[in-house]
């Protein structure tokens, strides 16, 4: 091993040893990403189900203001799980104007007010409610269910009375056969499509956020603890120091991202059928380009974070800079999810962050568009080298030797 490589390896190894000896950091960067999606995808639906059951058990009070309604509808209300109170409607020009009923909705003495009147063969209605009250929303939802049931029966009755077949009249266009059979995309391609919506986002956001803590610890942290001065007096160049620390941060971040993707796949597999996430069909060239895209992105992100952290005089200062900087990744990452890949212009593949995320989406769908590949490859390389150059400049600053301790 060359002495240069040996020094870089020594620095990286020491950083990793220090990292694994801190169990809190291990939990934050490795265990949480592994468990985050399974917990979110499995516990969250359970929580929603429990909330739905709670809503179902609620008693809701609905005031029905009417001067007469069809008998079937009246029967439907009386047999529903609503606590109904009838009141006369009075003279109201516009049924949806709350008027004096607003007050009792706001003070929750009633949960919803249904106003109905007959106008020829049509029943006009309005339902007053308060959108910020769960109880009121539940009352509204149950009232709509009753109204919809009556409306469906009434529609069928009127069509039948007119001498028509209700089924043919209401459903004149029908699918024949299985919908799944009609998709010519293979299972692998479908899996690629689904994963392309998750993996680039997870990869981008988690690469950035999981690199924050180790980047700060290895730069501003060293500076604050006063360990950097002794290190700078050693016979290694600042570039070797940067590279050693970069390797360590990239290793930690890479492990965190891989674990998070594993957790995500497990959660999707748990919730959906295994066919839903069958392995994407990727050839060797696509896989190689995927790895290259991720590597260039990691070089850029980690170097950028190390640079910003090294500029800072303290851990606190570094944290206050790098924390909000997550938005630099988050916004483009979310934006990239809604970009249509069909017929996309090549310049999108030159925009920082967006370029790698779009490249990942295309590659996961096993699409290699040569023009796009050239643009993202060249632009990502330029950005990666730019970030590395910026980091090198920060590591070469003379004032980094100054410790706050």
């Amino acid at each position, binding site marked *: 091993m060359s*002495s240069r490589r*040996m*020094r870089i390896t*020594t*620095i990286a190894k*020491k950083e990793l*040893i*220090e990292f694994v*000896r*801190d169990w809190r950091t291990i939990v934050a960067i490795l265990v949480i990403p592994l468990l985050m999606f399974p917990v979110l995808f499995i516990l969250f639906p359970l929580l929603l189900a429990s909330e739905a059951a709670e809503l179902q058990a609620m008693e809701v009070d609905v005031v029905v203001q009417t001067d007469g309604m069809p008998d079937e509808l009246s029967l439907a209300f009386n047999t529903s799980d609503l606590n109904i109170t009838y009141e006369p409607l009075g003279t109201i020009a516009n049924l949806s104007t709350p008027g004096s009923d607003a007050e009792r909705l706001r003070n929750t003495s009633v949960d919803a007010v249904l106003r109905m009147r007959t106008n020829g063969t049509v029943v006009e209605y309005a339902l007053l409610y308060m959108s910020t009250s769960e109880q009121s929303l539940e009352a509204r939802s149950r009232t709509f269910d009753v109204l919809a049931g009556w409306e469906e029966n009434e529609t069928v009755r009127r069509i039948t009375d007119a001498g028509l077949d209700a089924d043919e009249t209401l459903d004149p266009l029908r699918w024949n056969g299985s919908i799944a059979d009609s998709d010519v995309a293979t299972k692998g391609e479908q899996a690629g499509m689904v994963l392309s919506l998750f993996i680039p986002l997870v990869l981008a956001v988690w690469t950035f956020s999981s690199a924050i803590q180790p980047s700060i610890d290895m730069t501003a942290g060293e500076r604050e*603890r*006063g*360990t*950097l*001065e*002794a*290190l*700078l*007096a*050693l*016979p*290694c160049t600042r570039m070797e120091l940067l590279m050693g620390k970069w390797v360590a941060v990239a290793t930690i971040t890479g492990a965190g991202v891989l674990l998070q993707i594993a957790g995500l796949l497990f959660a999707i597999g748990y919730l959906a059928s295994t066919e839903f996430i069958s392995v994407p069909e990727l050839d060797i060239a696509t896989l190689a380009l995927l790895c290259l895209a991720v590597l260039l992105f990691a070089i850029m992100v980690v170097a950028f974070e190390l640079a910003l952290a090294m500029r800072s005089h303290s851990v606190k200062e570094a944290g206050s800079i790098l924390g909000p900087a997550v938005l630099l990744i988050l916004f483009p990452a979310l934006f990239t999810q809604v970009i249509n890949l069909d017929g996309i212009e090549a310049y999108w593949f030159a925009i920082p962050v967006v370029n790698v995320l779009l490249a990942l989406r295309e590659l996961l769908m096993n699409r290699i568009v040569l023009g796009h590949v050239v643009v993202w490859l060249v632009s990502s390389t330029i950005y990666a080298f730019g970030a590395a150059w910026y980091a090198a400049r920060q590591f070469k600053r*003379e*004032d980094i*030797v*100054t*410790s706050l*301790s």
Partner: protein
Amino acid sequence: MHEPLLVVDGVSKSFGDIVALHDIDLTIHQGEVIGLVGSNGAGKTTLLRLLAGVYVPTNGRVRLANGEEVHTARNVIGVVPENTGLYSRLTAWENIRYHARIHGIEDDVAWKRTLYFSKFLGMDDALQRHTKGFSRGMRQKTALLRALAHAPRVLLLDEPTAGLDVTSARTVRDLVSQLGQEGGTVIYSTHQLSEAHRVCNRIIIIHNGEVRADGTPEELLELTGAEHLEDAYVSLTMDVAREDEVNEKPLGRWSKAWRSMFTPSTPKEVNEDE
């Protein structure tokens, strides 16, 4: 006189507009134990960092006797910074081995040297312990062992006895004396003139970024006509000492303005009648 080892040739060091060191000329010979004595902010740490190759001079050169710039030949130098710079999640030996490996020293060679000096410092039982719970004295001794593991030709110590108890301070001083007797070269910064007198065979008095005197204790007494070194020191550093740290660029205009917005002004004098 032994052969020259390090040459400081017309060196000045500035941080922005602040001149930390001005036109320093020194020649350091093998076997010398040099005490770098000065008040806070005198420029001792800046000079040590220049000698360690951590700082590059604004003017002049710091070079080895063979002409090589010191910042490209850091493997001949061992450094113990004032705050020791140990990693608390590593053991004492891991701290030492980390630096030795970067110096390109095999683990077994570094271990033998560490064991030899650790017996002298009474640290042999603590080598496999994590440094987190170490006392100031143990941290200082570990940093010394770390700086010695690659057999440096020059050892730079920045206030090595500051904050140590009497016994630990004596152990450190004894080690420095022994290194000197064995022909090693040590540059030792301190506030304490008496300590420098006890340990060093050459004293450099540095004040406000300038070398005010350089010689053996006897030569300093002769130069100033004083009876005691302390009187000699006072007569050489009569002008008001700057006390601010000058090893960092001063704040920029905007940073200064921003900070001043949140700095309370000095309270006005209160009228006693009120």
